[in-house]
Every structure is written in C-alpha cells, then in structure tokens.
C-alpha cells in the first residue's frame, strides 16, 4: 500500500526525521488559509498523487505571494496530472500540500527497501538528488552508496558514517546526517514499510538536512498491526476494478489486450497471459481466482473481466487439485446464469476429475462455452475467438 507525500511526512515528524512545515488542503480556500498559517513569503504548492515526476508534469509550483498560492492551488486542484509514472491517462489531483519554501544548498537522495538477496533492509544514498534513482543506478552506479542493515543489531553509527562519507559530506555534517538516517531507519522498520524514498533530501544553507519529498510504501501483509497506516489508504489512487476484485478475494490487474483470463493460482495466471501472447494474442488481464473457484467467485471473475470493453473472448484456465474439476465446471455453468457472459468463453479444466468436467460442459451445450483439450489448445482457441475466427 502506498501513501501520499503529506502522510509520509506526518510519519517522518513522528520519528524525528526533519521535514519542512506544511499543511494539506482540499480546496483553494484551504490552501490559502494553510499558507497564511505557515507564514513567511515563499510557499510550494504540491499536487498529492501516488506517482513520482509531479514537478515535471506541472504539479509542483513555487508561490511568492498568497495570490500566487491561490492561483496555483486553483490550477492544480482538479487537474489531470500526467507523469512518467501515471501512464498516459494521468491522475486527477484531489488535494494539494502547501509547504514553506526551503533554502536549498545541495540535493541528495536517500532511500530504503528490502534487499531480497541479502534478506535484510538496505539503505541507499546518492549525491544525485532529484534524479530518478533507477537512472542513476543504470548510468552512474558509482554514485550510489549502500549499506545493508542487520535488523538484529539495528541501525548503528557505522552504517550512517559509511553513507555520509560515501556522499563526501564534510566531517562536521556527518553527525547530523547519521542522526537523520537513524531516524529514517526507525520510521521504516517500526511501520513495516517496504519502501521509503526521500528525493530530494536537501541540505539547507545553514547546514540542516530536510526531507523535501517523501514517499512510503508498506507491506500489505503487515497492515493488520498498523491501523493508523491502514487509515491512510486513498482509494482514489487505486484502480477501482482492482479494489473491487480484492474485496471479493480475487487478485486482478488490468492489461491492454483483448483476451480475458480467469485462472487459479498466481503463477499459472501469469503463465496463461504468457501463452496467449505466445499464440499470437494479447492478454486483457491477470486474474487469480484463488484455490476455491466456486460459482460465486467465478461469476464475480466474469463480471470484473467484462467491465473492460476491450475483452473479446475469455480463457478460463483452471488446474483442479484439491478443488475438483467437475465442481468447477458446474460452477462455470452456474456463473453464466448469474452474470450475462456476452463473449465466447474457452474453458480448459485439467487435474482432478477432468474427464467428468469435460462431459458436463459438453452436455450443457451452451453455445459460447468452448471446451479445450489442454493448455496450448485453450490458448489457441481463446486467441482465435478474440479475433472472431472461431
């Protein structure tokens, strides 16, 4: 689960990770009010969406007067912001963060995530603040300093010093930086974060470090023990169909093709997308209906797949193990009664009681249900059906 910058900064404050003062606003008036309360003569108006690259897309503006705050808040609130991370359709901005302007002497990058190979968290720092870290890693990897941190000993001074000296900080700034990094480590670990990024981390003219931006993502499996963070979920930022699928215990990801897929198991669901492509088609989605594949979940699966108007055929690919294929076959027939399935459905059922299942589908004799012999046959038929060739 991801959260907004303003929410990440709330968490930072709680953990004594220094951030500029700021306030979130949902309307233009609130934005101006927030700027007044903050005081000073320089503010930044920042669009709050779950995507990077907001500045380049026109979602971050400097304001030198309250009138300018009003102007930019009016401009940004309600705009559809397109960045390299939003996709071409962009995201509508529902709130802005008003922040006091900062005196930037130098920009850095500081981030933390799980190093899957080391099976420990890793903290990364770079002198290339403001740049996308992926790009830095690809083009100038020598500019990234990393430390893996054994959580059983926690964050130690030497971890921080390695990063600080690696960034080339003068010795009088090392102590401040180490304190900053230690605070960030605590914010990450305590909240079961899976990612935290500060880009840029700035050094001010008077030698302080401040998180000018903040991005945090969390381990979904650990949210149950962080009700405060669960409350930060913003459904406006998530694909509505994916949210609906999840509510019904299904895992769905929309793609661009026209062959809908309904599969049990995540690995087989990915493999099903792959084989559709291999047979000359394009998958419309990833959909894992889980182990059960009962009539209700299958019906819901059809409903979700068919929300995508691009879908011209559906490939149901179920490998029945503990769940018997004859039950799944009946489930599919039942589901077509609950949901009006308007496109051809190619069904491949293999595993426990596959023959009985084939018999059930054959005898049902429903025109747009097409049984398949095996995985390859099913993929071929689904691709052909989507092209109107079946």
């Amino acid at each position, binding site marked *: 689960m991801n959260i907004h910058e303003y929410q990440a900064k709330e968490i930072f404050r709680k953990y004594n990770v220094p951030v500029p003062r700021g306030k979130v606003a949902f309307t233009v008036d609130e934005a101006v009010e927030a700027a007044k309360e903050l005081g000073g003569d320089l503010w930044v108006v920042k669009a709050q969406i779950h995507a990077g690259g907001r500045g380049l897309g026109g979602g971050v503006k400097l304001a030198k007067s309250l009138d300018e705050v009003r102007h930019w808040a009016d401009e940004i609130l309600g705009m559809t912001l397109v960045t390299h991370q939003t996709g071409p359709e962009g995201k509508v901005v529902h709130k802005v963060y008003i922040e006091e302007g900062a005196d930037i002497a130098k920009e850095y990058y500081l981030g933390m995530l799980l190093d899957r190979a080391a099976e420990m968290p890793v903290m990364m720092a770079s002198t290339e603040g403001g740049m996308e870290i992926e790009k830095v890693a690809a083009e100038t990897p020598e500019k990234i300093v990393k430390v893996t941190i054994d959580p059983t000993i926690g964050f130690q001074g030497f971890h921080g010093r390695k990063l600080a000296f690696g960034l080339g900080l003068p010795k009088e700034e090392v102590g401040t930086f180490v304190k900053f990094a230690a605070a960030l480590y605590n914010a990450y670990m305590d909240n079961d974060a899976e990612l935290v990024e500060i880009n840029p981390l700035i050094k001010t003219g008077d030698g302080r470090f401040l998180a000018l931006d903040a991005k945090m993502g969390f381990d979904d499996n*650990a949210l149950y023990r962080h009700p405060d963070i669960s409350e930060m979920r913003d459904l406006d930022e998530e694909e509505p169909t994916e949210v609906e699928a999840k509510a019904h215990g299904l895992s769905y990801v929309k793609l661009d093709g026209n062959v809908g897929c309904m599969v049990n198991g995540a690995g087989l669901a990915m493999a099903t997308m792959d*084989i559709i492509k291999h047979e000359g088609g394009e998958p419309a989605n990833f959909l894992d209906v889980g182990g059960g594949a009962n009539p209700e979940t299958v019906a819901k699966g059809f409903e979700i797949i068919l929300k995508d108007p691009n879908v011209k055929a559906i490939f149901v690919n179920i490998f029945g193990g503990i769940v018997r294929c004859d039950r799944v076959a009946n489930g599919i027939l039942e589901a077509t009664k609950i949901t009006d399935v308007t496109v051809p459905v190619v069904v491949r059922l293999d595993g426990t009681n596959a023959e009985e299942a084939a018999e059930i589908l054959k005898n049902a004799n429903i025109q747009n249900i097409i049984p398949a012999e095996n995985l390859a046959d099913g993929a071929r038929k689904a691709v052909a059906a989507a092209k109107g060739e079946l």
Partner: protein
Amino acid sequence: MSILVNKDTKVIVQGFTGKEGTFHASQCIDYGTQIVGGVTPGKGGQEHLGRPVFNTVAEAVEATGATVSMIFVPPAFVADAVMEAAEAGIELAVIITEGAPVRDMMYAKMYATKKGMSTIGPNCPGIITAEECKIGIMPGFIFKKGPVGLISKSGTLTYEASNQVVKEGLGITTAVGIGGDPIIGLSYKQLLPMFEADPETEAIVMIGEIGGDLEIQAAEFIKENITKPVVAFIAGQTAPKGKRMGHAGAIISGSSGTAAEKMEALEKAGVKVVVSPADIGKAVKEVLGR
C-alpha cells in the same frame, strides 16, 4: 531416493486442529505421510485425527521423534511458530501459510538458520516425494514416481508441470514448492545440488517468475555445479512493470526482475528454457533423450 523427505520422515503439524490444518493433515495421512502428531497450544493431551496433540513443539519432538514440521498457523503467528520449531530441534519447517509479514519472515529465517533448521515457504504448496511423503496442500495423485526433480515458486504451475511430465510417460522424484514471497526458505540454489546428488533424479525442472534475482543466482550456480539437464519456465513474460502479480514477490521493480533477463541468464547457463508453459513436459522428454 529423493530429496529432503521420504516414507520414513516423521512429521508434526503446527496449527493441527484448525480448519486448514485438519483438512490437509488428513489428506497427507491418506497419502501415506507419517504424520506423528501435532501442536495446538492449550489442546495438549487431546487426540486429533488419531494422533496426539501437544502444547509445545518441544514436547511433540520429544514424544514423537519428528524432524519435520508442517506449519498452518495464521499469518500473524507464523514467525513465532517457525522460531519455536527451530528452538525445538526441528530440521525442516514447511510453511504453508499465506500472508506472513516480510519483517517477521526476515527474523524467523535468521533464527532458523542460526539453529540449523531449513525452511520451505512461506506461502507455498509444500514438498512431495512421489508416492512416499506429501507435506503440503498439493493434490497428491498428480505426482507419479519418476526421474524428474521439480522446483517451483508457484503452486498450480507445479501441478501443471508435474501433470505434463507424467503425461509424457515420466514422473517426479521430489517436487518442492518454494513460494513466491520476497523472503523464502530453501530456494533453487540450495535445492539444485540436492537433486544433482540424488541418484534417482535424472533431470530438473525449475519454474520461476518475475521479481527478485533467485533465478539469476540459480543460473550462475547451474553453470558451475549442475551436470544434469535442467528445463526452466519463467512466468510473467507479459507482466507490466511495477505491478504486483498475485504473489507478494512477483513484481518487476524498475527494470530488474524481468522474465526476459532471467530467461537469458538461464539459457546462457545451458538450461533448456521454454517460452510456452505448455512445452515443459515435451522439453523434459527431449533433454532426457527419450
């Protein structure tokens, strides 16, 4: 022969009396697995599925001589259960539970390693030695005895692959579902040498997916150490970047963890990589020259 488990392996179940634990333990018993008891705190002294229930893993190990534990406890208690098993001298914990927090698994695996206990999973179908011992939730009948070792991150793809292998007239020595979480126990790199050393295993199938670099590590290892033929399939060739595909670990971050890079590394290591998941069985037959 086989790897890790066989007909003599004594197994206890943590989370024995729960719904999942009960259902799958009884399936394992039907398959012939030596389930010698189980643990449910507070239910010690009772009997369940005709086996004794204990309050602690230590008591269960002492009374039964079990060396393997199959874990079904709810996600919030997985780390505790794994560490209890390690403390009690269990040699292998098979963690079926889905949804354990990454931080918990990080600590649990470190402690298991320190105590010399291996783990499989979490969020996996388990391990099965064909026609001898099933420790997990896989449909047993799909796994017929034969010369092929199987390592897979995905449950249903494991069944799919085994089914294809069996349809080609071959079969399985041992199949291990390693799970698709960001932190898992035994992986390709630890399991490959076991299959290499197993005289009954003649070929190895590895099924990977997007995310992380375990398959790349495996490729490097295969190049140097594995002489038996290996067939691989990587799921998620068509997966978009930055999207989690069902499994917590199945996500392409930036440009790393793609199927393409894994397939390329494996091919370079001399592995027979199939593009279509329907070709796994055929490829195994081919590499075995049958």
